[in-house]
């Protein structure tokens, strides 16, 4: 019961923030709401007993991605004044199609499909398992991820670098 | 002899390709050398194909024809597609025709073409390989490959060395043909899936779709579209006037002389043997299309003021005879109409094949003649001329021979083919054949009234032409004489050729299940 209430509060916070992210006129505020939403998601992970993921969520989404986004917003600040509409001319269509897609998804995913749910506790050594999985069966993705990060790092530096004279 | 049997077709087929590569290697400044190389190289297949003609006639024709000189090498084993070529009584004369017209065209072009010489001769030789390939292929994939190979050089010949509207015409030519050929490819694939092979001989034995007329018709029309566009039969003919008109002289000659035959050849080589039921079922449609082509083509000729366009439309009309002959044979094959004489079907088909050969010779000659005039006058407008008979007597004479051959004057080549077609068709589809005869009358009309009266008779426009028009030169005579000679020979003594074609027709009809009593 308590969990359900907590869940509802967190989800309300998360989804509400997400709503503000996509509707707020001011981009910087949008970004802040995004951070809030990320925190909400992290909290959901805690409810799901995925502590590691919750922390990683904060570390990567808030610490890296959101910071990058805010940074980018600051660097391109001339555009953030909000004088022009933040929405493009297909906003209405976007809204309609999103609503339709949402209804379809909810109907199918939540209502129609019966998921193979099992009631099992999370094993206490989940983090160890996760660690060994990353260097065991999933070692290839793990290694490729490192290559990807390196490539993205070099690529981002290369592209965003100041122009040479 | 074994060596000859095994290699002659392959050599004929790839010799022009080798020649074209040789031409490609030559520096483009050495135009004379390019011309010499091309002409002399093209003589080789001509000689070989003449030998082939004689050899086949002497050795195999008396002994019941059939496919000979065949070579089969596995090409795509997974698909059971092979490099399978061969020649029979139908293709041997056509191979000769191809070699002959190509050599003449090259010879003529050597004098006329002065612009981008290297490319011209390269493409022309490539084209020859494509045409040979179609006449020799006994495998559908191979057939398709050569079918398309012939397409590209012609596109360039029209597009680069053509007249004012060449770009439009070349594009139209290419796209029309492509529509048909892709449809044909799809139909080939359907055949493959039903019979498990691309080999034409095997397919003819297996008779795919013999019991399913719906699917057979579907496949039939796939192939039919490709062939009928090439022939071209009304209503698929609209590319032809443009292409013929805009093409350079030699291009028109080849286009009308041989490329159109590829379509008709396909009817005989693929549709009739492999899908006899569908061929018989839709024979009547072919008759109708043929007759419409004849009559429509002829009447449109009457309305032309452009000399070359007129000849082009006359091709539509004349290829209509081929369609009529084939269709009549098909109707006979279906058994719905029982002809008085079972030979009528073979006769109609003989006529169709003869017409293919003759039209090649005659229209080739006519296009050369038009080209010769155009070289001097730089206009193709009929009404601009008049009274040329006095000024260019030699030209007039040759033109008259070709023209009369075209309208089917007895004693010249054209007569026999028309005679055979109508003789056969009358027995099978009387009414339609009768309507078709209108076309013959109109043909006489446009040859005599439109061309002869306008161009050669009347008053010579001294003011405009003065001494700008002169009579035929040596090389032009040399180009035309062989054709004129053949017209006379075939007009007076067509028997050797008729023997060939009759053998082919009987063979094809028998295999297709036609009963000769």
């Amino acid at each position, binding site marked *: 019961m308590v969990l359900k209430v907590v869940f509802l509060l967190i989800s309300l916070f998360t989804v509400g923030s997400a709503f503000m992210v996509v509707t707020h006129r001011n981009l910087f505020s949008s970004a802040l709401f995004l951070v809030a939403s990320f925190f909400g998601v992290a909290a959901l992970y805690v409810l799901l007993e995925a502590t590691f993921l919750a922390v990683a969520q904060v570390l990567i989404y808030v610490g890296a991605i959101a910071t990058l986004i805010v940074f980018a917003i600051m660097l391109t600040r001339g555009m953030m004044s909000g004088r022009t509409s933040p929405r493009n001319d297909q906003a209405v269509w976007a809204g309609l199609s999103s609503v339709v897609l949402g209804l379809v998804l909810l109907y199918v995913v939540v209502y129609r499909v019966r998921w193979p749910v099992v009631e099992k506790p999370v094993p206490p050594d989940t983090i160890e398992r996760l660690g060994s999985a990353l260097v065991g069966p*999933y*070692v290839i*993705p793990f290694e490729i991820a490192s290559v990807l990060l390196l490539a993205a790092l070099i*690529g981002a530096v290369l592209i965003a670098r100041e122009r040479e004279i | 002899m074994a060596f000859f049997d095994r290699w002659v077709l392959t050599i004929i087929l790839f010799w022009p390709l080798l020649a074209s590569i040789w031409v490609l290697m030559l520096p483009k400044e050495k135009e004379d050398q390019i011309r010499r190389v091309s002409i002399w190289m093209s003589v080789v297949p001509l000689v070989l194909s003449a030998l082939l003609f004689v050899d086949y006639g002497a050795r195999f024709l008396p002994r019941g024809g059939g496919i000979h000189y065949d070579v089969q090498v596995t090409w795509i084993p*997974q698909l059971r597609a092979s490099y399978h070529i061969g020649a029979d009584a139908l293709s041997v004369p056509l191979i000769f025709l191809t070699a002959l017209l190509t050599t003449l065209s090259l010879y003529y072009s050597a004098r006329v073409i002065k612009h981008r010489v290297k490319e011209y001769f390269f493409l022309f030789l490539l084209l020859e390989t494509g045409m040979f390939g179609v006449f020799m292929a006994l495998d559908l994939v191979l057939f398709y490959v050569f079918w398309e190979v012939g397409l590209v050089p012609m596109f360039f010949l029209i597009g*680069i060395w053509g007249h004012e509207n060449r770009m439009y015409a*070349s*594009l139209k030519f290419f796209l029309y043909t492509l529509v048909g050929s892709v449809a044909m490819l799809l139909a080939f694939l359907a055949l493959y*899936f039903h019979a498990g092979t691309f080999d034409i001989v095997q397919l003819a034995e297996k008779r795919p779709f013999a019991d399913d007329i719906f699917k057979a018709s579907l496949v039939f029309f796939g192939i039919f579209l490709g062939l009928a566009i090439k022939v071209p039969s009304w209503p698929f003919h609209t590319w032809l006037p443009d292409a013929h008109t805009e093409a350079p002289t030699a291009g028109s000659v080849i286009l009308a002389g041989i490329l159109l035959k590829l379509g008709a050849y396909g009817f005989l080589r693929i549709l009739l043997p492999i899908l006899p039921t569908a061929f018989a079922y839709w024979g009547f449609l072919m008759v109708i299309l043929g007759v419409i082509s004849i009559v429509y083509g002829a009447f449109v000729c009457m309305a032309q003021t452009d000399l070359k366009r007129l000849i082009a439309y006359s091709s539509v009309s004349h290829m209509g005879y081929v369609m009529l002959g084939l269709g009549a044979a098909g109707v006979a094959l279906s058994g719905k109409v029982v002809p008085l004489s079972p030979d009528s079907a073979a006769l109609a088909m003989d006529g169709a094949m003869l017409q293919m050969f003759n039209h090649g010779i005659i229209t080739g000659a006519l296009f050369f003649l038009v080209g010769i005039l155009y070289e001097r006058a730089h206009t193709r407008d009929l009404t601009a001329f008049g009274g040329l008979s006095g000024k260019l007597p030699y030209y007039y004479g040759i033109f008259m021979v070709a023209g009369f051959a075209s309208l089917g004057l007895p004693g010249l080549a054209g007569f026999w083919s028309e005679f055979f077609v109508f003789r056969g068709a009358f027995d099978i589809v009387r009414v339609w054949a009768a309507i078709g005869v209108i076309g013959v009358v109109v043909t006489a009309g446009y040859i005599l009234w439109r061309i002869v009266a306008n161009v050669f008779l009347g008053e010579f426009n001294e003011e405009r032409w003065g001494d700008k028009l002169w009579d035929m030169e040596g090389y032009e005579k040399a180009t035309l004489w062989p054709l004129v000679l053949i017209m006379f020979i075939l007009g007076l003594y067509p028997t050797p050729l008729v023997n060939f074609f009759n053998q082919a027709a009987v063979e094809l009809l028998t295999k297709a299940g036609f009963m000769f009593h």
Partner: protein
Amino acid sequence: MFDTSTFIRLLPELILLVTALVVIFVDLYARRRTALGLLPGLSIVGLALSFLAVFAQWGTREVVAQTLAADTFAAFFKMVAAVAVILVVLASVRYMRARTRYVGEFYAFLLVATLAVYIAVSARDLITLYLGLETLSIVSYVLTGFLRDDKRSNEAAIKYFLYGAVASAIMLYGFSLLYGVTGTTDLQEIARRLLNGDVLVNMEWLAWPAIVLVTVGFAFKASLVPFHQWAPDAYEGAPTPVTMFLSTVSKATGFAVMARMFLVAMPALQSSWTALLYGLAVLTMTLGNLIALRQTSVKRMLAYSSIAHAGFILMGLVAVTTALGQPFNGLDGVLMYVVAYAFTNAGAFAVVAAVEDGTGGATLDHFAGLVGRAPFLAAAMLIFLLSLAGVPPLAGFAAKLFVFAPVVRQEYYVLAVVALINAVLAAGYYLKVVKQMFFVEEPERAPFAVARSMRWALWLMIIAVFGVGIFMNWFAFMASQGAAGMLGL
């Protein structure tokens, strides 16, 4: 679990990775002039070695490190990718040198992108598959926007990036549903659990959303309509060698993962995805061709044409039969098309790059009278265009044959007719370029020279285009082995 044999199986990937690192280090420490000469050579050597390593393992069919499949299907795509990237490197030597200082990074990125392709085509696990695709995408964004001071390059990269990010997010959502319903990320395992209907009730309700969502991601990579909007812009704006890469290797990868995903993981839902792909194929080729007809920039025209070709390739998947041993099963059509198309399209774009180098642009006007100015380029372009149009005996014909065939076999008449019309439409605009090059004469424009490496690349591609067309049997053999060897089937 990491024994020697695993390393040997991973040798092609390792070679690429090491080469990429070597390239970066050489670029860091060698003098600029030495590096410029050395780097493309190094990259090509690495790619060639990796190609050989793949080839040496042809015919294997086993699981490597649990998440990769070392099968002929993957090997086929890897070889195509390696060869195509070699050509890209050859075509980019002069092009990139003239436009950017970061040549070393460029080649390193190309190598990493190839590595990503290797991973993606052999992934047999949702996670690896996603990561492979995404690595390829991200590196491609960088490559597209590599000329960062060029507005067009940047714009192209941004459009590519935005579409790509969204598409991959949507695809991921589909993946997550698949994971939810089967509880596993292993493709074969997914297939097994999907077939065992007892896992869940109402699976058919999930089939459509999952398939549609998943397809979005693949369709984006393969630039299928309506997920193609990025493609023309990215192809036009990207450095032309990168366009070569995107339009051949990257696209092929999209098809490879699509085929593996659908055939290995979702055979139970075949009727659903076939229907979806059917529609996509029709849309893709028709729209691609119709829009291509209106283009005046050759680069953009080729971009739309490559969209249309994606529709043709898709026909192979639509009409796929699970009897992968037989010829014309559809999947071998995809493979054939990918090979033929890789050489042909890479060739066409390489010519565009050369023309850009020589004339400063790539509109139809820049191609006018090309035959007089760079006859070799004109001839090469002609061959590539004819191959694209499917004229025998060129590679494109072999490709067309192998994708038309399954459609005819399955008796999809509408699709066949649509394909026919499209083949003709496509020929229409290819001929437009031919017309410009050969029929129009521009005697007053000066001839220009072609870089030596570019000449090499073009010759290779011309030979390949003829080779695939004439020695179709050999490639068909490889393709059918590749198709039949897909692990899990």
